[in-house]
């Protein structure tokens, strides 16, 4: 392998970490802007290198596009440096293939734009440098996740992004809500980490290795039952990280973090790690039909669930959070039924338009002094035209209107669902498309129209250039991103082919299917029309409907009370138990034991101090008596009756 391919992956991986270390340790010495410059440059450098690497890899024939690099080559196999528990040796290996490259490009590319955006957005923060250090750590962990060459290093990245997410959600550590949300996200993600660990244990037991190469090459040696279990445990990890049912409740709360964090971690990259995991482990799911079906059903249920909840939320970022959950549901559904190219395609376009939506929302929130409630917005289209037009592009894209990016990717998924004979899942997914268009345009109308501005805060209208430029770039990408896949020119499947050589030639996506496109577009238009009618033309009808269906509205506004259910099932018993332990077992049991130990020790000491008379001759007598006894024991018991030769 040539030197470029062997070294560049490590440079890409460690550049963001290096940036974070520089910011962290040189931080107090560099100017405030230094942190931003180092952060941005390191991510941009990683992006340029990734682009070069991707260009090189995609020049090669498809069968050679997947390769493993170990570092440092001489050490990689040496047991002294890496885990060596015979027969298992885990070296530091990275796997570069088209699937990883797509994720790397988005993580570094969109990551760079969001870094740039943060320069303006976080300008007033006291912890400016810390923020960029955390963001760099996140990019590093995410790259570790997608570049890992075995499941253990994947888990390292998996835990790393969870940690970065925790740090950044609770970034504003003065607010109780932010800290609670961070803790919630961490706990739910750790449940997923445990799932992946269980999958790793089963894989180790059956394959004796955790390397992708070995596991996937020997996949047929394991029974379907085993693979189903591996698939289910991996799915648990994916569900927690990607905020799918039933471990989704942390994502809406995670919106407590700063908006660039929501854009990068909780929209574009980290939450799609579950999709990546299923696509990465596709040989397992290809041989485990039950687990794959579970993936698809979870994705579809999450898509529908989140879309219905999104209709009744009033916090602009919460609506976007539920829409993220819903769109990731589409991706999970796609990879679950085996439409890997379509799922990846939707990941790419979603990264564009969802990051765009968050950035536009961030501009609004920034200009409204932190206001997130859309009931206190309205009429902002004229006051913030840039935010409006970019938000409109994002909304059209997510609603799936031609020719914006979401139209092509969502269509590809729906088309594949029918092509792979899943009509029921297709019906639910199409219904979700209608709901998506409805709640996104409801959000758009309530924010930018519905009469005049309803808030008290006098909005700014100017925005920092570092915030405007990335938003506009992403608006452009969200507009043209869909053209990656056109009828007769399917770049995504072609590009991904190298990562899926074991499945033969990937089916082409993006062929014109008038039925699917027509139904989807009609559904989206119906959703938009519904939102327009209820929010612009007939508000009194909306109020009547809400009163007529008050219980339903309450149910949706409270997200099906899942949080409350979890509170009563998990939190209350555990907290009650913990407080009882603190009240009774701790003082009486643990405290009693240690107090008793102390009493016993001092009692024994008290009894024995009488032996210390201080009279030297009494000690001497004691020694002599002991000596005589020992001697007598040896003479009359141990060696009784024996004799030695005496002269």
């Amino acid at each position, binding site marked *: 392998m040539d030197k470029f391919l062997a070294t560049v992956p490590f440079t890409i991986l460690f550049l963001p970490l290096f940036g974070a270390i520089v910011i962290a340790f040189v931080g107090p010495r560099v100017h405030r802007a230094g942190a931003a410059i180092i952060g941005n440059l390191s991510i941009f450098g990683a992006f340029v290198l990734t682009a070069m690497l991707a260009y090189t890899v995609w020049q090669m024939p498809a069968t050679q596009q997947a390769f493993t690099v170990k570092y440092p080559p001489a050490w990689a196999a040496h047991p002294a440096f890496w885990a060596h528990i015979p027969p298992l040796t885990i070296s530091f290996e990275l796997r570069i293939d088209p699937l990883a490259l797509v994720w790397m490009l988005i993580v570094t590319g969109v990551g760079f734009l969001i870094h740039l955006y943060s320069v303006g957005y976080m300008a007033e923060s006291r912890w400016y440098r810390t923020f960029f250090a955390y963001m760099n750590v996140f990019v590093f962990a995410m790259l570790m996740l997608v570049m890992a060459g075995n499941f253990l290093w994947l888990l390292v990245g998996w835990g790393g992004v969870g940690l970065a997410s925790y740090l950044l959600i609770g970034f504003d550590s003065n607010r109780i809500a932010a800290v609670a949300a961070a803790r919630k996200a961490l706990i739910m993600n750790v449940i997923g980490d445990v799932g992946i660990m269980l999958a790793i244990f089963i894989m180790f037991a059956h394959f004796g290795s955790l390397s992708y190469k070995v596991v996937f090459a020997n996949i047929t040696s394991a029974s379907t039952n085993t693979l189903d279990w591996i698939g289910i445990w991996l799915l648990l990890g994916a569900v927690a990280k990607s905020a799918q049912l039933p471990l989704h409740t942390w994502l809406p709360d995670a919106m407590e973090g700063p908006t660039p964090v929501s854009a990068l971690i909780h929209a574009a990259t980290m939450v799609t790690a579950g999709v990546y995991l299923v696509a990465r482990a596709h040989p397992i799911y290809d041989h485990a039909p039950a687990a794959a079906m579970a993936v698809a059903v979870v994705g579809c249920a999450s898509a529908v669930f989140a879309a219905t909840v999104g209709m009744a939320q009033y916090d602009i970022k919460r609506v976007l959070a539920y829409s993220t959950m819903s769109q990731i549901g589409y991706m999970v559904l796609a990879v679950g039924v085996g439409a890997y190219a379509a799922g990846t395609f939707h990941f790419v376009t979603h990264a564009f338009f969802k990051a765009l939506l968050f950035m536009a929302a961030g501009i609004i929130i920034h200009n409204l002094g932190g206001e997130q409630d859309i009931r206190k917005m309205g009429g902002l289209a004229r006051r913030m035209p840039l935010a409006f037009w970019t938000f409109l592009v994002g909304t059209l894209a997510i609603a799936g209107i031609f020719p914006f990016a979401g139209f092509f990717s969502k269509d590809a998924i729906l088309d594949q669902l029918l092509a792979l004979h899943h009509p029921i899942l297709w019906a639910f997914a199409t219904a979700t498309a209608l709901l998506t268009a409805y709640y996104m345009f409801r959000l758009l109308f309530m924010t930018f129209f519905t009469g005049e501005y309803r808030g008290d805060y006098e909005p700014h209208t100017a925005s920092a250039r570092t915030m405007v430029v990335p938003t506009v770039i992403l608006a452009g990408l969200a507009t043209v991103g869909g053209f990656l896949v056109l009828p007769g020119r399917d770049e995504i499947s072609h590009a991904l082919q190298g990562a899926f050589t074991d499945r033969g030639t990937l089916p082409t996506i993006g062929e014109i299917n008038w039925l699917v496109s027509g139904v989807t577009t009609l559904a989206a238009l119906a959703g938009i029309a519904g939102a327009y009618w209820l929010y612009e033309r007939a508000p009194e009808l909306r109020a009547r409907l809400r009163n007529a269906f008050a219980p339903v509205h309450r149910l949706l506004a409270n997200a099906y009370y899942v949080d409350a259910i979890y509170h009563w099932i998990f939190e209350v018993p555990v907290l009650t138990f913990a407080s009882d332990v603190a009240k009774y077992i701790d003082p009486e049991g643990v405290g009693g034991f240690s107090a008793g130990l102390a009493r016993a020790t001092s009692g024994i000491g008290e009894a*024995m*101090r*009488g*032996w*210390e*008379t*201080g*009279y*030297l*001759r009494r000690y*001497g*007598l004691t020694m*002599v008596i002991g000596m005589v006894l020992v001697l007598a024991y040896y003479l009359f018991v141990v060696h009784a009756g024996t004799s030695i*030769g*005496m*002269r």
Partner: protein
Amino acid sequence: MIPTNDYLAAAAALFVIGVIGFLMRRNPITMLMAIELMWNAGNLVFAAFARNFVDMSGQIFVFIVITVAAAEAAIALAIVVMVFRRRREVDVDDVSMLRG
């Protein structure tokens, strides 16, 4: 040739004299001399058995014992001197401040 048992009897007598001296006297210097007697009773036994078994180990051990005894005597005398400086008398029954 003197039988080994005679040496052992002499050593036992020396040792018992040492023990009695150590337990009966209250002057630390005298007690140290009694301890010396016990050391040398042991030495005599080592030497006697070395001859009995024609094995030099016993004699070598005697040298080690003599060295250790010298070191012990030096430390003990230093302690006696220090006690004397502080209290102007060295009766061991009076020096019992370290009782529990």
